[in-house]
C-alpha cells in the first residue's frame, strides 16, 4: 500500500538558518512526489514536484527538495528560513496505478521560524 510519513509534527528553526522538513514514502514503482504549503486560513499551495530527472527539484519561494530513491525520501529544504515561511507543510505521493490519480498525503509538519 502507498503511504507517506512526515516524522516531525513540528520543526522550529531560527530565521536565517537552513531548514529541512522530512518526508519518506512507500509506493510500488517510481513515485510522483509533491510538496504543498498551507498558510493560516488559506488553501494548499503547490510548492514543487518530482516526476523524473534531476534529484534536486527547485520550487516556489526559494524551496527545494531532494529525491533520494535508496532512502525513499523527499525532504523539503530552504537555505535561509524566513519568518513568513511559518506554515503547515504537506508531502504527498502518487503512484503509477493505472487509472488512479489520487494523492496520498502525510500528516503535515508545522514549521515555525523564530525571529
Amino acid at each position, binding site marked *: 500500500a502507498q503511504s507517506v510519513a512526515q516524522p516531525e509534527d513540528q520543526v522550529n528553526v531560527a530565521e536565517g538558518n537552513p531548514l529541512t522538513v522530512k518526508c519518506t514514502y512507500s509506493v510500488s514503482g517510481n513515485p*510522483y512526489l509533491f510538496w504543498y504549503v498551507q498558510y493560516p486560513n488559506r*488553501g*494548499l499551495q*503547490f510548492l514543487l514536484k518530482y516526476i523524473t530527472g534531476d534529484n534536486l527539484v527547485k520550487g516556489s519561494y526559494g524551496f527545494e527538495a531532494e529525491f533520494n530513491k535508496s532512502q525513499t525520501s523527499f525532504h523539503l529544504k530552504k537555505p535561509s528560513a524566513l519568518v513568513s515561511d511559518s506554515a503547515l507543510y504537506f508531502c504527498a505521493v*502518487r503512484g503509477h496505478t493505472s*487509472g488512479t*490519480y*489520487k494523492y496520498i*498525503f502525510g500528516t*503535515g509538519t508545522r514549521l515555525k521560524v523564530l525571529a
Partner: protein
Amino acid sequence: EAGVTQFPSHSVIEKGQTVTLRCDPISGHDNLYWYRRVMGKEIKFLLHFVKESKQDESGMPNNRFLAERTGGTYSTLKVQPAELEDSGVYFCASSQLPRAGDTQYFGPGTRLTVL
C-alpha cells in the same frame, strides 16, 4: 486566472442535518478531486471526477456522502445525515489533464463542524 473556489468557507450544523459543499474548479480543468482532513490527521482522498463521470470514488466513507458534478463544471458534496465524525476540512482540487504527474490545485477548503 481564478483559482479553485469553495463555498461555504465554514459550516456549523447539528448532527442529523444535511450540508452541501460546493467546489468550482479552475476553468478548463476536467479533473476534480475531493479530499478531507480530520483534525490533526492526514488529508485523505474522497473521490475523483473526470468531467461529469466518477473516475474513482474509493475514498468515500459511506453512503451518507453524495458527490455530483452535473455538466462537468462545478461539483457538490452532500452529507446527509451528518454525523459528529464528519467534522473536518473538506478540500477540493482540480487538474487539467488525467496524467499521474499532473499538478492538482487546491481550493481554500470548507471547515465543517458537526455538533
